[in-house]
């Protein structure tokens, strides 16, 4: 089993989730993070508004789903197809990370691995 972590724009979440739904991925979780990459932070006011600083990072959302190897490509395709902010994409659209998971257990039943997904 593998874990797919996608860092995406917060405003794309609903559309990405629909895409995941469409390819049959119904288990996932989402959280808010702040991230930086090529996309730089923005200038923000600090103190009483007359002085500014640069915010290092911008809000991003992190979707995590653990799936069987077999489903990997279709999930990735679903994300790639839905996460771009525009046709051409723009810096800051995000990244997908894939990593191994050795075991999965469903709390309710104690089922393990593929059965637990």
């Amino acid at each position, binding site marked *: 089993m593998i874990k797919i972590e996608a860092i995406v724009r*917060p405003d794309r979440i609903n559309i990405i989730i629909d895409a995941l739904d469409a390819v049959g991925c119904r288990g996932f979780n989402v959280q808010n993070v702040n991230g930086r990459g090529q996309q730089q932070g923005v200038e*923000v*006011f600090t103190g009483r508004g007359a002085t500014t600083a640069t*915010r290092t*990072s911008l809000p991003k959302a992190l979707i995590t789903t653990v799936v069987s190897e077999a489903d990997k490509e279709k999930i990735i395709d679903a994300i790639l197809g839905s996460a771009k902010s525009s046709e051409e994409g*723009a810096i800051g659209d995000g990244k997908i990370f894939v990593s191994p998971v050795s075991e999965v257990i469903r709390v309710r039943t104690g089922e393990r691995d593929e059965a637990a997904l």
Partner: protein
Amino acid sequence: MSDPGNVAWMLTASALVLLMTPGLAFFYGGLVRGKNVISTMMYSYVAMGVVSVLWVLWGYSLAFGEGGNFIGNFDFIGFRNVSAEGVDGGISPMLFAIFQMMFAIITPALITGAFAERFKFTTYIVFLFVWVTFVYVPVTHWVWAPDGWIAGIGALDFAGGIVVHATAGIAAIIAAKMVGSRRGVERGVEPHNVPYVLLGTGLLWFGWFGFNAGSGLLADNVAVTAFLVTNTSAAIAGLVWMVLEFQSTGRTSGVGFATGAIAGLASITPAAGFVGPMGAFAIGIVGSIAAYSAVKLMAKTGVDDALEVFAVHGVGGIWGSIATGIFAMQMADDNGVMQNVGLIDGETALLWANVRAVVAVAAYSGVLTFVILKILDIIPGLGLRVDNNEEDLGLDITLHGERGYVADGAD
């Protein structure tokens, strides 16, 4: 000299109405997404800045100068000749002008709910100056200046159902249509902070006592009845909304109760000095049902009046203005003889006058708002709407350089 009691009440009422604008900022600010909370609140707060200045410089003069049926004159420019000296049995012109100023502040702020989360802030500042000058000020003159033409046809608007809520409500739907829908709101937007919505509701309800019970300009029995019916209409309208919601979904949202209460407050506003508690029940119940239905209908039109300004304030204010013609109680004429006024006492004149007034004001506000926004749209450097990237990132960080909430640690 003014009685200090009347001065005390009108100072208090003015402060209460001023507080409604921060209340509105929280009401609206809680309903949008977190990335636009400051932007949405600033639409209201900056109205306290812009309109206060405008009102002193020329707004009051054009609204209440004796200029004729359609507009005031320049007699009171910069509050020149606006005396603070009290007058027997009333309040000073300056205190009246202050009280009226607070109405001029909140009216355009009400509109902002329609185009929240996407309207350019700089353009909005210009819009404030222009809209208040060319829409709010003339309408106020028509309805509330003694020589205004709507006052002349005998229409009655106690505290602003026509002047405030109908103008803003119509402007809102026009603006929403012209600015276009928010990106990606097809599924609806969950309010990002319901406690703020409730806080705003509390402050609005509280401030509305100044709005309505102050509109008789005296601490007298009219103020007392206005206070009572305001509270009654808010209460029953909130409950009615809750029942409607419960019947259709089995749940009762905080936002729903709040929205119902606000619809009830908007509805009773034009009638507050003219009806008793039973009239308030009728007005509140129908106002809430009408606003609820309007929200449902708006969802079908595809017009993204983001915070339902038309459905709640517009429909409420219009209904209330008509209802004034229905439920207004007998009033003493100049000779102290009681006269029938409302439809329930068999008179149709007031109802008819108020209907004409609403239609005229709605048409005027709609057309002017359209023209103003069209012009602002094509002026280079202005334009109505932020670009897609700004909208996606949120207006707070892109236009205001701030985030509503910053967590320690996670930079």
